[in-house]
């Protein structure tokens, strides 16, 4: 998940330059957006069907929640790779020459640590509950494969955080 795009590039307000995102990220983002659209579609279908035919889409709420959750998960690795996190850049805004570089690297390291911890937690969770008979209440989907999806996206997030760290290290002192 490499790339040269920095979230701190000057972007004209509101205009999208983010489609310049590297290819792997684009795939993740497109998949995430697809999930959001499907989630919205299920809800809209439910409302329309209810208004027109007095019926409902079975398990609409659970389907919407799961689809949007999957979209959120898929967008998280991109957020790591491109370092689009919310950060309070107080010190580096006041004295960019002194602070931007060391703090940027420290932040990237901490981000890697967090990604590692979450990935480990998801892996352990999956390992412990692999044989669990638990299912989702409405769709009756088995939970272990769903936990596996979560663990996989956090593995991707770990790789992405590593890429983010490499990018941060290579970056020169100036802060945009």
């Amino acid at each position, binding site marked *: 998940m490499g790339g040269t795009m920095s979230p701190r590039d000057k972007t004209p307000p*509101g205009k999208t330059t*983010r489609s310049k995102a590297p290819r792997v990220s684009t795939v993740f983002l497109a998949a995430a957006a697809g999930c*959001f659209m499907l989630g919205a579609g299920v*809800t809209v279908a439910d409302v329309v069907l209810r208004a027109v035919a007095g019926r409902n889409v079975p398990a609409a709420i659970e389907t919407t929640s799961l689809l949007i959750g999957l979209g959120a998960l898929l967008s998280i690795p991109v957020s790591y790779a491109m370092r*689009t996190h919310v950060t309070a850049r107080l010190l580096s805004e006041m004295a960019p020459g002194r602070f931007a570089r060391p*703090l940027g690297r420290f932040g990237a390291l901490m981000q890697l*640590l967090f990604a590692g911890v979450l990935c480990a937690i998801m892996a352990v969770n999956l390992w412990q509950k692999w044989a669990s008979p638990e299912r989702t209440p409405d769709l009756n989907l088995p939970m272990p494969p769903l936990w596996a999806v979560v663990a996989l996206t956090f593995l991707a997030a770990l790789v992405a955080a590593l890429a983010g760290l490499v990018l941060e290290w290579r970056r020169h002192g100036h802060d945009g």
Partner: protein
Amino acid sequence: MGSGLMLGGVGFAAAIAMILMEVPVAVAMGLVGLGGAALVIGVQGAEAIGATTVWDSVTNYTLAMLPLFVLMGNLAAQCGLSSRLYRSMSVLIGHRRGGLALATIGASAGFGMISGSSLATTATMGRIALPEMQAAGYSRALSAGSIAAGGTLGILIPPSTVLVIYAFIAEQSIRALLLATAGPIVVAVTLYCLAIWIPIRLGVSDAPDIARAARAERRAAVKDLAPPVGVFALIMGGLYSGAFTANETAAIGAAVVLGYGVLARRLSWRGFFAASMDTALTCGALYLVLIGANLFNFFLALSGLPFALTGLFSGILGTPTLVILLMFAIYLFLGTLMDSLAMLLLTVPLFVPIAKAAGIDLVWFGVFAVMVVEMGLITPPVGMNLFVLKTTQPDIRMTELWRGVAPFVMADVIRMGIVIAFPVIVTWLPYTAF
């Protein structure tokens, strides 16, 4: 208990220190949350918390509307709905100094009528208003400040998820609570307008001076208002006629805007793709912050810090004003780091019995709690509305955001003073009119 309390305080300080050292907010709160939880309940417990928190955060049905509102805002921007809205307003009221900032407060209040969440209101208005205000020559501090502050109206104006949750915890009538917000909403909007207008008058805030447009241009502007106002009216009509729930509004809103874009031929494939990608990119950062905040809130609950704070009230129950002021102080303290919903869930069960014992009206208290919790959304260092704005526009500076919201925070403090001094502003409508 004592050591847990100590741990809560240390964790609080550690998170703030990491945030000041420019560790991403989600990472700082998440690491402190998990580490602190491991100290209180062991590594295995922290693991369980991590796993359940991630799952609950991403599959939460109420949060599910956030990406959809962001999508709606992005689509509206790509269809040119938002630029039309702001260009028209610029023509109609732009010649008044700060006119667009005032319009943003008004538009946020309007959006608050279809959204039950402050984060969603801020995310959407950030997409719609921020670029347009800057294009019109407004400073980033003033534009961002008015959007972040306007966003807090999202939970004060019905529908409001936070108020509904308060109603359940405190066992108060939802109808009475909703009616009770009317007075404070008027006060809030008025004070926000003053918070825009006074700094401009004093010359400490930048707003462009625009000449009044010609009559023909104004007439065209009114006509141009029709599409955005029509789309909004359609969504609001559906919500208030009961065709769909507040939770479904976001999906319907995105669909209506998409439908407008396609039918009016204002949305290209390229624009649709850009809106989708932008939505996903914003949501990645947003969900990480939510996960981090939830982990931190979990740790804070385990540490016993909020429980211990309630011990402070035992001696002053006879003086309701003191009780209220102390709660106000505690909310401001917790609000520096906590998310609004978590704060409400944690404190309301503790504070409601205290308020009851001190003879404070619980409908009034609900509105009070929602207002102070909502203040936490724009107070540094962790103000979720500020973060949402920063995810929608990463190049905005934190210092600009803080400078921008300062007058609005002052307006909020004054509003709290007014509502405490004249509780009738809250209680008149629910108790007298119904």
